[in-house]
């Protein structure tokens, strides 16, 4: 078996084993025998950043279609493959990645790998199914529009980017969702769903050697493909503040301030991560874990400046590891009766204060402890461990996660002050307001 693989590595820090099949599929396995479960994730390096004009939303729509039957799994039999073992299955798409997950009893491992291999190569994309899913996705989009905070996020993100496809929403623009064809989707699927553009992650009550054998059984016959051409847009430097104001029926005001963030590969990423913890409290350091629960933030700068002063009911910050420079987003919910200008002014005053005087050593110590705790909490289940491994492998490479804690610990006061002064400037920010109007 060893001779069939191009390389094999072991990461002692994370107790993972990784290998690569001859067709380029990377397989990452971690044995965790705490519960009789196994979590399988199949990650593809394709997301809304790969969508050109007219194709916005294609990555996400393709993800939906991969629940709609394959050559060897008729559509009506897709449901039940994992459920018979008590399993859950799902998928998500974001700017850099599309991923599919199944977590079930360990006896379901073979079925889960079979399902993922079918998805990778043998999706049906029946025209009628594509049409049916078009309206499902439009319903998903409209559900998101019901949330004014999400609506504002879409507009602010689109305003912050002029050239890069990170600017359009992952779900796509409604007009493109109405116009795309089955062939658009199928072509997109065939371009990106190839083993050498994917990583299979298996974590749970398994034997790593056995997993590698099974992965080979299910995936080895899928041929390597030509690596897809990527969109090469580089966002031009922002020269001045941009603003967007949405006025719609509603009850509550929202404010967002976004700044250009470093990519995960840039040295600035780590001081920005600590700075965000100082400003809004530490979250998990990947997309999924960043949403889990409320961060410890009662002593965070923006919480004390806005929530404790009765200006906002919530404060949040988000900086996530991405392949290319994305956004650092600050979000505020205005207290009923407080003006959006007051909320914005208080937030920017606090940022300017940090730009003038930097942060305190005690704040950095607190932020480091918070981030250390979050990295532990994110390993609380086989599903979350597998997500974390796959996320970082896909957007930041295999060395990111093992070095993450060290890189956080090495961040200095000077580096934090420096990124605050260079990156959180007025010229680099986009501000958005959702100003509610009365419902007649």
């Amino acid at each position, binding site marked *: 078996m060893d001779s069939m693989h191009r390389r094999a590595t*072991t990461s002692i820090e994370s107790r993972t084993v990784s290998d690569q099949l001859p067709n380029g599929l990377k397989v990452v396995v971690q044995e965790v025998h705490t519960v009789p479960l196994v979590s399988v994730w199949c990650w593809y390096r394709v997301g809304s950043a790969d969508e050109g004009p007219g194709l916005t939303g294609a990555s996400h729509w393709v993800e939906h279609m991969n629940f709609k039957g394959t050559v060897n799994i008729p559509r009506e039999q897709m*449901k039940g493959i994992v459920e018979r073992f008590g399993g859950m299955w799902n998928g998500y798409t974001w700017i850099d990645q599309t991923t599919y997950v199944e977590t079930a009893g360990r006896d379901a491992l073979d079925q889960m790998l079979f399902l993922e291999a079918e998805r990778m190569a043998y999706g049906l994309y029946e025209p009628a199914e594509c049409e049916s899913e078009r309206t499902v996705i439009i319903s998903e*989009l409209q559900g998101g529009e019901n949330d004014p905070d999400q609506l504002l996020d879409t507009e602010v993100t689109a305003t912050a980017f002029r050239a890069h496809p990170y600017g359009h929403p992952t779900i796509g623009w409604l007009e493109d969702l109405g116009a795309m064809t089955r062939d658009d989707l199928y072509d997109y699927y065939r371009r990106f769903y190839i083993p050498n553009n994917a990583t299979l992650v298996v974590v749970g009550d398994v034997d790593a050697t056995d997993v590698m054998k099974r992965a080979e059984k299910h995936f080895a016959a899928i041929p390597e493909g030509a690596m897809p051409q990527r969109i090469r847009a580089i966002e031009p430097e922002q020269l001045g503040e941009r603003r967007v104001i949405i006025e719609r029926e509603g009850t509550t005001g929202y404010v967002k301030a976004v700044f250009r963030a470093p990519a995960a590969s840039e040295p600035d990423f780590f001081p920005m991560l600590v700075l965000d913890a100082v400003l809004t409290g530490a979250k998990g350091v990947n997309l999924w874990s960043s949403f889990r629960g409320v961060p410890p933030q009662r002593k965070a700068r923006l919480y004390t400046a806005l929530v404790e002063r009765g200006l906002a009911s919530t404060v949040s910050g988000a900086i996530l590891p991405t392949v290319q420079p994305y956004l650092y987003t600050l979000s505020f919910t205005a207290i009923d009766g407080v003006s959006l200008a007051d909320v914005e002014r208080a937030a920017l005053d606090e940022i300017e204060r940090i730009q003038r005087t930097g942060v305190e050593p005690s704040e950095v110590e607190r932020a480091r402890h918070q981030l250390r705790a979050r990295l*532990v909490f994110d390993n609380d289940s086989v599903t979350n461990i597998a997500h974390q491994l796959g996320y970082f492998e896909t957007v930041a490479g295999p060395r990111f996660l093992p070095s993450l804690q060290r890189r956080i610990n090495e961040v200095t006061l000077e580096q934090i002050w420096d990124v605050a002064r260079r990156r959180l400037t007025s010229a680099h920010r986009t501000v958005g307001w959702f100003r509610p109007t009365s419902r007649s």
Partner: protein
Amino acid sequence: MVPSDEPIVMSSSLAAGLSPVRHTLSNGATAIVQESSATPAVSINATFLAGSFCDPDGLPGVADLTARLVDRGTARKSAAAIAEELDKRGVALRVGTTRHRMIFSSTCLAEDFDDVLELIVEVARWAAFPEAELVKRRAESITVLRQNEDNPSVRAGEALSELLYGPVHPYGRPAKGTVATLERIDRDALVKFHADEIRPAVLTAVVVGDVDAAKTIDRVCELLADWNGGPERPIVVPPPAVPAVRRVRQIPMPGKSQTDIAYGFTAIRRLDPRYHAYWVLNNILGQFGLGGRLADNIRERQGMAYYAFSEFNANVGESPLVVRAGVDPKNVDRTIEAIDAEVRALGLQGPTDAEMDESRSYLIGSIPRLLETNESIAAFLQDCEQFDLGLDYDRRLAGLLNAVTIDEVRAAAAEILHPEHAAVAVAGPETRGGE
């Protein structure tokens, strides 16, 4: 392939089922500890049977506002001091309420466990409810209510509860209060609620994680032994006040893109012997796969909704079985017709043998996933304690589900699934809910 480092091997016996240690103090407080060394972390879930059910008549929202303030200052520690203790350990303390519970929950590093446990006991026992904090937290609560007024999903769900139970029933009235009631709640109301309801007799403290069970039980006893309070009182939930006839409420929300539908019936209590049959029934109707028969029809065959499912969370009193769907406003009538059709068909014909087999297999197989994290184990053990299910419930559950017969599910379906008895709430830009 290079061999891996040593795999993570559990030191406790979670793979074979839970093995919690339980102890009840003389004041009625109960401590339950489950060891798990999967990660160097600990989850604490301290639950008092004191949710919105305990709100004073005519003043809904007291329990929820109490929860918002309870950790914002004690007799010995200011809100700022508590904030510092939490934040420096990377800990978020969540205090929230349901109809019957006030839940203090937190996950911390094992090295911080003793301090965090002590802090949770401190705020639960000696909350001071400073006036200045009341002003801030009340404003936050009002903002949340205003956000909910703008949320079709929340509006439809709250309207359904009121249709099913009536506006004054503890399951029908607004759990977070109204703007008017929040403005009337003063510090005295919170102090009284805390004194009357936050008592050791209704406390179960569950700890799950990288701890020593015996030492943890001892520590909980030390912290709680001198706390006195009234005995546990029986919880009597009145039957639904509203007759079971078709009721429809439409909530116009101009400017929204999608319409939310909440459709439901009142069903059984958690301790009803038919509970597991209802659980299987709900799975067939609106859970299995992407959402059972409902999603097969509304999402998969008709492409009308991103989500269509049912849920059944049985509680102390007769609890609702609820169908939810979010649809394009022009599809509201068709969606309600589809829900009616699926509800009627399952009610008249019951499930198929194949549906019984796949739902039973799914529910039994999913038991380990119910216990995948320390937090989910703690929540599971709280249910075991509140409903006296036994600490071996995780091991008995498969047998209980396996014993459910098709006749029992058919009987449950025939009893409850009558579209002519349904309550239907529709919130969105154009409300064309039917009748």
